[in-house]
């Protein structure tokens, strides 16, 4: 029973992070219909930047972290303006292949700059473990769960009440109508990339603190796909729930595998089987809007 609870908790913690990354993925998809294959690299860049600030410059975490976020904000805007803005008007498939190119470019660049081996973050919390309901949980995990929930709540508030968020939703709904209401679609695109990069960086730093920073972080960007397909490609709520389900599922798959099946590697592969099955039975996910067209 304790084991079951432990698995569930681990799954929820990882799943919440998937949810956060999936949310920032959906943000870009909703705003500009771009399937962003470079989402994992945002985590990677954010985590390495923070790690570099903390180790090379010896900054305390509470200074280094905001600087990382500011950097990612600028990075997202620059990326959109320099690389993706010239692609407006090109077929969407070309834009997606540009993100694939970006992904491989940044991944190689990070490996080149920081090496291929995982590097640990300097310790951030005074006590490494906390006791929750009789279970020893690492403090970073608790912090990561709290951060994830905060981000999700922030997203909820942002899209429901802030003017920028409403403008973004309008852009996602219909670009031409939004333009006619005086919303700058170009700004909205840039903002969606900036926010997405920033939020992903938070997830990246969190995972980096837990597992150490390495190029494996960019795999988070791949794991996002099962989550968003499960939740529906264009649903923010679906992304969160899909992320949680994928997180729990891979932990259970890992357990089942290590106990009975002994196939190995289930932790990484199980979500992809789920992805294929979802595509077979419910292709638009749990909360996605189904496109209906009559010819």
């Amino acid at each position, binding site marked *: 029973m304790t084991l079951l609870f432990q698995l569930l908790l681990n799954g929820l913690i990882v799943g919440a992070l998937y949810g956060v990354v999936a949310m920032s993925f959906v943000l870009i998809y909703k705003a500009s219909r771009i*399937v962003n*294959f470079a989402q994992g690299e945002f985590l990677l860049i954010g985590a390495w930047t923070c790690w570099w600030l903390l180790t090379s410059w010896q900054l305390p975490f509470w200074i280094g972290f905001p600087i990382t976020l500011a950097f990612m904000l600028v990075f997202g805007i620059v990326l959109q303006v320099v*690389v993706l803005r*010239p*692609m407006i008007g*090109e*077929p*969407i*498939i*070309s834009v*997606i*292949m*540009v993100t*694939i*190119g*970006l*992904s*491989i*470019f*940044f*991944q*190689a*660049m990070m*490996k*080149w700059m920081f090496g291929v081996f995982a590097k640990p973050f300097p310790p951030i919390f005074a006590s490494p473990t906390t006791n929750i309901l009789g279970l020893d949980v690492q403090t970073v995990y608790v912090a990561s769960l709290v951060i994830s929930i905060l981000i999700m709540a922030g997203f909820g508030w942002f899209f429901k009440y802030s003017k920028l968020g409403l403008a973004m939703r309008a852009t996602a709904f219909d670009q031409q109508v939004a333009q006619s209401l005086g919303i700058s679609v170009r700004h909205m695109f840039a903002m969606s990339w900036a926010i997405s990069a920033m939020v992903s960086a938070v997830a990246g730093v969190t995972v980096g603190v837990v597992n150490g920073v390495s190029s494996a972080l960019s795999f988070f960007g*791949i794991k996002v*796909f*099962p989550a968003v*397909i499960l939740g529906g*490609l264009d649903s923010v709520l679906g992304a969160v729930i899909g992320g949680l389900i994928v997180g729990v599922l891979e932990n259970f798959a890992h357990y089942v595998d290590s106990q009975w099946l002994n*196939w*190995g*590697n289930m932790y*990484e*592969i199980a979500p*992809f*089987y789920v*992805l*294929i099955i979802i*595509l*077979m039975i419910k*292709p638009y996910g749990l909360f996605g809007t189904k*496109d209906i*067209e009559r*010819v």
Partner: protein
Amino acid sequence: MANISLIPCGDFKTSYGSDTTIFPTVTSRNFAILGVLLLLACPFFMDRYWLNLCIQIGYLGIAALGLNILVGFTGQISIGHAAFFGFGAFASAWLSNSYGVPVALAIPLAGVMTTAVGMVFGLPAARLKGLYLAIATLAAQYILQDFFARAGWFTGGVAGTIAEPFTLFGFAFDTDESYFYVVLVYVVVMYVLATNLMRSRDGRALVAVRDHYLSAEIMGINLTKYRTMSFGISSFYAGIGGALYAHYLQFVSVEGFTILFSIQFLGMIIIGGLGSIMGSLMGTAFMVLLPEVMQAVTSALQGTAIDTALNLKEAIAFLREMAIGVAIILFLVFEPDGLAHRWKQIKAYWKLYPFSH
């Protein structure tokens, strides 16, 4: 209509047949034949190093052409092409090792098997509008990679498997010089097949699906059928390419068919030209020669300030990956039609040579 030697200044075609011929003039056909003849003579004057590169361009070019039919002509993305390429390699080796199927027969059979596997992943995704196929093939990439490492009966597990050399009528094509001809025959056949496909109703249907799926559907084109068909063809080509690779190296290792390799395939067709048959081959040549050129540049720079500053020798692998990424981005932004378009421009320039504008 293949009886004129120069392209007339105007459109004087009177039938659809003459509009879709492969070679518009006698001269272009003769040049193509001359090109093949020149290639036939290659093993006599090329050394092993260049032959190896040519063979690589050959089998990768076949797989890249398959991807181009899917991406360039049908407008769907596949990010698992390397996994299918790998599956073709293992399938062919497995057929000839376990069942004694002659290699000459195992290669096309491997293509068929790869198509079947592709369908498992493609069928759920290809029926959907939008880019679900990209995501499904991403899953296929990881699932197949995992399968390669686990299915010892099929792939030999982590140890890899040996593949028998290509033999025909008792003659073994086990040297670079002889295998070059095997690859050349396959390249010519597969490229002619693809060219003819694009001249047929089915090929035009694929292009219609890419350009405007709604209009295509209104014109009576079954979207699901053509998306699935295109993915099947692309898997078939990947399987053939992979099988040729297996019997060239005569050993297949489970590593190497990674997502990076898949992206490299995408890079080949983007650089060569999306929706261009010969472009696939040009892009493959570019991608195969890129590391060689980088290697040459690195050794030329050895000992200079740039070398010490960047530590080139260790960074070369990363620089190569970065170069692939940059090439993909730059081509998509500045030359979306790829090298094939450049080649056309060069031809157009020389056609009107002294009076070109």
